[in-house]
């Protein structure tokens, strides 16, 4: 039997107990008004690579099929359910799911390649209902796991994006920073590139001013172009870079605020006030904190938010498409992956929604293989 810091860890559920637990959780979902949804285990590769990017192929199992093309074993439920929902006509819907997902793991990993997951996705067309759905989602998982000894951690990507929106820099720079929030190395590199105070000797790749004129000159002389990227595309990018030369860089005070914010953690109860006191803050950030505070208040009606942890960057590296409220539940020891994780993914919805449907969504999954006896 494994020992945790706080004593002996209870054994995993055997298959009959797991079956009972699946039934219990399904009942909770149904009572909460959720409808069971199923999606295929084999998914079309090109649909998925399109928005997960190539990283997917490092984690998912791909199969070859000369007729249907490359197929992928379902690496999670969220994206296939979202795609299915978008194909339908309804805007609002509450689904739950139950089944296997398959992911490659590296050889040291303790996560099984084939894992059983249950979870849910809540879709709505109205942004105004987001906060109450956030609360609904968190409380649902909280209820399911209330018989276990678990801790929860919360985060909010919106807090960071709003702080970036408040920076006194061009939209170009803001967009670049925001789209790399999930990739810390590239994000920090951009933050350096866009800052007034530079680490000495650093190569400023994106903005080599003297080159821009030379590039334009060269471009005029070129006659043969091929491929999708046109002469106009190149010209436009050079013009953007040129325009950026005269634009603001991130002030030192702003940069240190951003770095402070990224390191911020406290109890959920305390978080709104403490974050506001970090520095002089702009309007978008203030608005995000107001929303945040509203969510904390609603949650506090049901749970003790002083015991819930909050970290601004919680889940940024592991929960890549989440862009708002995020949460995770864990047993009292750090060795195992979170038993449940979830969050809001509105921008993924708008990226994938081709008909211009406005859809907001929050979801969460439970790693059933990691449940233990109580």
């Amino acid at each position: 039997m494994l020992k945790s810091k706080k004593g002996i860890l209870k054994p995993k559920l055997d298959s009959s107990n797991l079956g009972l637990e699946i039934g219990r959780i399904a009942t909770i979902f149904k009572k909460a008004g959720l409808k069971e949804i199923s999606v295929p285990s084999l998914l079309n590769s090109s649909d998925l690579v399109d928005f997960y990017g190539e990283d997917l192929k490092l984690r998912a199992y791909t199969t070859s099929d000369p007729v249907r093309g490359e197929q992928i074993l379902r690496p999670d439920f969220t994206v296939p359910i979202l795609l299915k929902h978008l194909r339908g006509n309804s805007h609002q819907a509450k689904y739950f799911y139950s089944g296997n997902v398959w992911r490659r793991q590296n050889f040291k990993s303790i996560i099984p390649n084939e894992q059983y997951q249950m979870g849910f996705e809540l879709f709505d067309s109205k942004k105004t209902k987001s906060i109450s759905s956030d609360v609904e989602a968190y409380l649902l998982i909280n209820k399911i796991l209330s018989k276990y000894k678990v801790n929860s951690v919360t985060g909010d990507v919106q807090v960071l994006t709003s702080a970036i929106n408040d920076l006194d820099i061009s939209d170009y720079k803001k967009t670049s920073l925001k789209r790399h929030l999930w990739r810390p190395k590239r994000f920090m590199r951009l933050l350096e590139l866009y800052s007034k105070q530079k680490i000495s000797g650093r190569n400023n790749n994106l903005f080599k001013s003297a080159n821009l004129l030379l590039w334009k000159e060269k471009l005029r002389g070129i006659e043969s172009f091929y491929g999708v990227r046109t002469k106009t595309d190149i010209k436009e990018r050079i013009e953007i870079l040129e325009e950026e030369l005269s634009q603001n860089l991130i002030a030192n005070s702003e940069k240190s605020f951003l770095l402070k914010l990224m390191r911020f953690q406290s109890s959920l109860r305390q978080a709104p006030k403490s974050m506001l006191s970090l520095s002089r803050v702009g309007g978008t950030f203030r608005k995000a904190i107001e929303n945040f505070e509203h969510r904390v208040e609603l949650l506090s009606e049901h749970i003790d938010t002083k015991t819930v942890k909050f970290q601004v960057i919680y889940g940024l590296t592991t929960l890549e498409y989440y862009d708002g409220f995020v949460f995770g539940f864990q047993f009292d020891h750090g060795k195992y992956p979170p038993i449940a994780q979830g969050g809001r993914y509105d921008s993924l919805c708008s990226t994938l929604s081709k008909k211009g449907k406005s859809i907001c969504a929050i979801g969460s999954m439970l790693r059933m293989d990691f449940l233990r006896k109580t």
Partner: protein
Amino acid sequence: MIRFGLPSKGRLKKQVEKFFSERGLELVNAGMIREYLAEFKGEKKVQIILLAASDIPLEIKKGNLDIGITGRDLVFEKILDWRKCILELKQLNFGEADLVIGVPQFWIDVNHLDDLDEVAFFFRKKYSRCLRIATKYQNITREFLIEKQVTNFEIIESQGATEGAIVNGIADVIVDISSTGETLKQNKLKTIEDGTLVKSFASIFVSKNYYKKNKSDVELKRLLDRLVLDI
């Protein structure tokens, strides 16, 4: 019998032969299917098997070969976690080739990975698709670009003539082997500053499993000693 895999054609084959003759080992044809089997003159314990350089890594892993000489790039590409099953006995001073990113020369604004990442994002915005990268080296390319945190790219498998993929409209960018840069130039492609994925050359590889079982074998020891000899 020690099964020794060597490249069956090309410049690499000639360089390997030279490497052997410097160490007093002469390759001679053996038997009927002479093109793909050989032996060292006077050495009855070593069976030389000639095959495509790109097949050598996997055959060592599978246990069909005990030793092999091939490019490091091919080992990295064909076997993830290759260090778990293959021993790199000696790095050789031939077969140099770099695996590089090639972009059209007229992309004068693209000179770094930063630029490539940004252009890939523009592709997504303007053409609603990822930047397409054609390569024979899918695994290395994917790992390299993800490690560098480049986004919005998609890898297109190419079995050969990769340098033509852009003109053919199959891809926007390529990743390919370049030893002198001449092929890239001929196809109006250029490299970018931080776009070298692997600096490759030939090495002697030994199956770990085989080595563990036979390391006290006198014949094997004699052969390996001869191979690692610096001339």
